[in-house]
C-alpha cells in the first residue's frame, strides 16, 4: 500500500523538479553565513549608532556644531557601545567580507554569476516584469530560476551595496585612509562616509524585508528548505 503511494508520487513529473539541485552548496553556505553576519552587523551597528545618532556631511561633525540629520533616537552611550557592540561589529565584518570574497571567487569561476544572475533581454519585457513589481505570487516553475527583477536586485546587492558598505566602512578608518585617502575623500570626507554607511544600511534592510516577503509569498517552507538542502521540492508546493 505504502509502496504504491510512493510509486504514484514518483510518477508525477514534478518529482524530477524536486530532485533538481536548485542552489549549490557554496551558495547555500555563504547565504546563511552572510545572513548571520549581516544580522550581527546590523544589531552592533545600531548599538554603535546610538552612541551618536546624528549624521553629518564632509570631514567633521560634532554635537556642538550643525548636523545633516538628527535621527529621532536617544543618545545611549553606556549600554550598547561599551558592551560587545563594537567588538561584534568588526568580528562580523570580517566574517561577512571573507565569506563575500569566497562567494565572489566561486561566482566567477563556477559561472554562477553568468548563468544565474546576469539577466537576459527577455527578462525585461513588461509582461515579465509587471507582475514582479506588483509583488504577485510567483508561479511554481519560477522556483527553478531567478527572474529579471530578482537578478537585478541580487546583482545590486552583491556588486554595489556590499562593496559600498565596505568602502564607506574603511573610509572611516584613520589607519586605512592613511594608505588610501580616496576611500574618504571620494565622498567628501570621513563624516560623509559615515552618513552613506548609514543610508546603504537602510537600503540593505529594505532589500532583506522585501526578500523575506517574496519568500513568504512563494512558499516559505519550500523556499527556505531549498536554500538549506539545495532541493526545490516543487511538487509539495502544488498541493
Amino acid at each position, binding site marked *: 500500500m505504502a509502496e504504491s503511494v510512493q510509486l504514484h508520487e514518483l510518477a508525477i513529473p514534478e518529482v524530477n523538479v524536486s530532485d533538481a539541485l536548485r542552489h549549490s552548496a557554496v551558495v547555500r553556505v555563504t547565504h546563511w553565513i552572510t545572513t548571520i553576519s549581516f544580522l550581527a552587523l546590523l544589531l552592533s551597528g545600531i548599538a554603535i549608532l546610538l552612541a*551618536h545618532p*546624528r549624521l553629518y556631511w564632509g570631514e567633521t*561633525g560634532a554635537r556642538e556644531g550643525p548636523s545633516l540629520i538628527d535621527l529621532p533616537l536617544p543618545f545611549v552611550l553606556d549600554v550598547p557601545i561599551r558592551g560587545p557592540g563594537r567588538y*561584534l561589529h*568588526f*568580528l562580523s565584518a*570580517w566574517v561577512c567580507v571573507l565569506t563575500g570574497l569566497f562567494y565572489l571567487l566561486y561566482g566567477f569561476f563556477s559561472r554562477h554569476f553568468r548563468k544565474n544572475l546576469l539577466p537576459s533581454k527577455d527578462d525585461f519585457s513588461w509582461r515579465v516584469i509587471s507582475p514582479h513589481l506588483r509583488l504577485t505570487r510567483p508561479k511554481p516553475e519560477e522556483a527553478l530560476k531567478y527572474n529579471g527583477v530578482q537578478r537585478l536586485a541580487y546583482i545590486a546587492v552583491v556588486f554595489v551595496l556590499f562593496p559600498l558598505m565596505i568602502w564607506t566602512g574603511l573610509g572611516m578608518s*584613520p589607519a586605512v585612509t592613511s594608505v588610501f585617502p580616496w576611500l574618504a575623500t571620494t565622498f567628501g570626507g570621513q563624516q560623509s562616509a559615515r552618513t552613506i554607511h548609514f543610508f546603504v544600511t537602510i537600503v540593505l534592510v529594505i532589500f532583506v524585508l522585501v526578500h523575506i516577503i517574496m519568500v513568504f509569498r512563494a512558499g516559505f517552507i519550500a523556499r527556505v528548505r531549498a536554500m538549506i538542502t539545495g532541493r526545490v521540492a516543487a511538487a509539495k508546493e502544488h498541493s
Partner: protein
Amino acid sequence: MSELLTRRRLITTGLAAAAGASGLAVAARLADRYSLIPPDHRGLFGAGETLTYAAHRILTAHHSLAREFERSQISKVIPVNGKHPEVESYQRLQAGGFADWRLTIDGLVARPSSFSLADLKRFPVHSQITHQACEEGWSFIAEWTGARLSDVLNVVGVQPQAKWVFFFTIDQWWDSLDIPDALHPQTFLAYGMNGQEMPLDHGAPVRLKVARQLGYKSLKYLSRITVTDTMKNIGDGLGSGSPSTGYSWYAGI
C-alpha cells in the same frame, strides 16, 4: 560512482582540513614573530581584532601618513570630551603654570629621564593639522604642535628588545602603543593646539597625539612613559584601560 565521489570528497575534505589547520598554526607563528597580534586577541572577538590589527600593520608597514588638512579646514568648534581632572595634584600643577610638571620616561631605555615642559619645547617643533574622530562618531580637525615622540625616545635610547610604549596619566588612565606607532612621525607629545598652549580640557600641559588611531588613543594629561617588552603586570594585561570598557586596544579601526 557516487561511492567513489564520496570517498574522493572525504579525502579532499580531510586534506583541506589538515592543510587549513597547519596553515593556521604557521600563520599564528608568523603573526607572533612579526608582532601582528594585539593584546586583546583572546576569545571569539579577539579573532576579529587580530585580523584588523595584522591587516593594518601589513598595510601601513611603509609608515603611511594620516591625512593632513588646510588651516582653513580647522573646525570652528572643538568638542570637549570630559573636563580636566579635579584632583589636587593637578590643580597645584595648574596653579604653577605647569612649571613643576615632569614627564618621566623609564623601563627599557638606556637613560631613564625626566622632562619638564620647557625641556620638551627644546626638541624640534612639529605641527600637524589632522582629523580626530571619536569611536562614538563625532570628529573635528585641529592643528597640533609638539615634539615627536620618536625624537624624545631617541634621546633616552630605547633598548632593542622593547615592544611596547606605555603611557600613564595624571587622572590614572593608561594605554600603550606598539613600536611602529610610537616611532611614527605623526605621533606627538603635543603641548599646543590651534596656535595656543594646550587648553586644560584638551590635556594640558602635554597630551599624546596618535594621528592614525581614534581619539581615545591620544591620552591627555601625560605623566609617565614606560618602555617594556611585555604587557603583563600593567593593569589587566590588555595594554590599556580601554578593552574592559568595550573599546579595543588597537584603535586604527
